[in-house]
């Protein structure tokens, strides 16, 4: 606050008002210029570039040949493309419902006055979200190793034979889903908790004065006001699950038998094969899908409100 002196009489701005006004008019352009420059260079230009690229068969060298909608029709009739979307959809089903149930449960419990140590829980729950994904993915590989992993050691101690968590196509998806759940559920709890805390206490008091029962208060105040936060969390996680890349990249390399080749990982495959035109088309299809899914959830959110 020391930057605001009390004396205002001898200000140069008073003496030269027109120049000050001119500076004031040009200042915002100067302030946003760095952002605009980077935006044009590293967002607009590449976007236009991908769009054009998606209609060519360019492989990174030589001349690009215009192929019209070929890349799009190739993808839309490719079983691999649909399998990658299917894998992401299965992961979504394994992740989002569980995360919501556990998340809402934990948030409501943490928000109740009866539970002690709320601060400690909040901190501990967010630890997985803060840790670097690659480091944790490495730990996952070790923990879930079929022969030497700690998870199978625990199961073995109660007589359950070793499970091929990362080596069988039926278990690889749940194991990756568990990694994703571990990494982000605490974050969802914190979001839901802040949603709960933003519910004005006076609403409950007013409702109680009007003679509403506690059950009525839960149904008429807590649930409707939290629903918005819940749908928000769903949109957020849907975007994240369909773009999932680092988890299969580090832990399973998309295997076994392509069972963890997610939509995001499949896209990366085009890059490694230098099949850039198809990759560009795949990017756009994925964006359209992700945007459409978000819109559907936003609509649901509006309808329920």
């Amino acid at each position, binding site marked *: 606050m020391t*930057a*605001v002196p009390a004396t205002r009489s001898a200000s140069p*701005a*008073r003496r030269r008002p027109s120049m000050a006004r001119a500076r*004031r*008019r040009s*200042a915002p352009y100067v*302030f*946003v210029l*760095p*952002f605009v420059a980077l935006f044009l*260079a*590293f*967002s*607009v230009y590449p*976007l236009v*570039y*991908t769009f054009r*690229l998606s209609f060519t068969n360019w492989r990174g060298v030589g001349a690009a040949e215009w192929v019209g909608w070929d890349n799009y029709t190739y993808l839309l009739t490719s079983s691999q493309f649909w399998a990658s979307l299917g894998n992401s959809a299965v992961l979504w089903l394994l992740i989002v419902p569980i995360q919501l149930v556990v998340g809402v*449960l*934990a948030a409501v419990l943490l928000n*109740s006055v*009866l*539970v002690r140590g709320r601060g400690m829980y909040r*901190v*501990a729950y*967010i*630890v*997985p979200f*803060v840790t*670097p*994904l*690659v*480091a*944790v993915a*490495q*730990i996952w*590989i*070790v*923990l879930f*190793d079929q022969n*030497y992993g*700690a998870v199978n050691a625990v199961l073995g101690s109660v007589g359950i034979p070793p499970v091929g968590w990362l080596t069988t196509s039926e278990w690889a998806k749940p194991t990756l889903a568990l990694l994703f759940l571990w990494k982000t559920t605490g*974050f969802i709890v*914190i979001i839901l908790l802040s949603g709960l805390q933003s519910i004005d*206490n006076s609403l409950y008091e007013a409702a*109680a004065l009007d003679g509403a029962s*506690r059950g009525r208060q*839960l149904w008429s105040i*807590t649930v409707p006001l939290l629903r918005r936060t819940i749908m928000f969390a769903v*949109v*957020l996680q849907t*975007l994240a699950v369909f*773009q999932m890349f680092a988890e299969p*990249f*580090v832990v399973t390399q998309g295997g076994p038998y392509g069972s963890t080749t997610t939509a995001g990982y499949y896209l990366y495959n085009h*890059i490694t094969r230098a099949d850039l035109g198809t990759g560009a088309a795949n*990017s756009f299809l*994925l*964006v359209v899908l992700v945007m459409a899914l978000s819109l559907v959830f936003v609509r649901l959110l509006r309808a329920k409100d």
Partner: protein
Amino acid sequence: MTTTTASVETEVEAFPPGRARRPRAAKRDLGRHLGAQVFLLLLLIGFLAPVAWAVLSAFKPAADIIRYPLRFDPTVFTLDNYVRMFEDVPIMNGFLNTAIVLVFKGGITMFFAPLAAYAFAKYRFAGKNLIFGAVLITLMLPTIVLIIPLLLQMKELGWVNTYQALILPGAIDAFAIFWMRQVIAAVPDELLDAARVDGCSEFGIFWRVVVPVIRPGLAGLAVLTIMNIYNDFVWPVIVASSERMATLQVVLSTLAQNITGNRIGADYATVTAELLAASSIALIPLLVLFIALQRHFINGILAGSVKG
């Protein structure tokens, strides 16, 4: 699961503290309360166990990690895994590259994002809505759509495996502008006008009036930015995966390919031990920062959640 679900309702009912219960109801409440505590505690253990297991195991003799994954004997504490890991893995190089990217990319975001946000929050100018629309589009665009063209762009510029490629794309984070705009909008206009009348330049107003006032928001932004840059993986692995340029996360990821290629016998034990040592050491800087700045972290993460 069903008993805990039932307890949720009581907890919420109990949320606005009410009249005294009859003894029987109180007893039932105690049971549900206990159930709630157990549920929260189990979740806490689940969240901390993998990290704790990895950090502790890294201090065990390599052979013991795979032979007795669940046994922890403080008398056989060893640093061998760390010593070997530092010999085999270019992890210091990874730390150094990450630090360089953090300083420059983080610095650019921390300076230019609030500056642009200040223009959006406190000025009227032609094209403002158009440019802010660009911010929103950048915010909503899935990162994957830009990866291929950005990579090609970097190839054209000759920037593959350079610091520029790691630093410049996305350096002025759209989310940071979006968030700081909200924070700066709350700064009273009278404060800015007073400074203006006193002859403060437009940038001076930002630097000497706005920045000191929004310091808590900036702290939140700083920790969020550090976390995002430190943990960033997809772009670095695609554009700068050479050994010399690899950031910490990229170094860690190639370790994984090593281990899957060496799944047999003693080799596996050694590689596993080194891998756990490397992963543990990568966790430490962020965990220390997190514990020191919990409040700012949680504020930053909450604000950050509007992204997407």
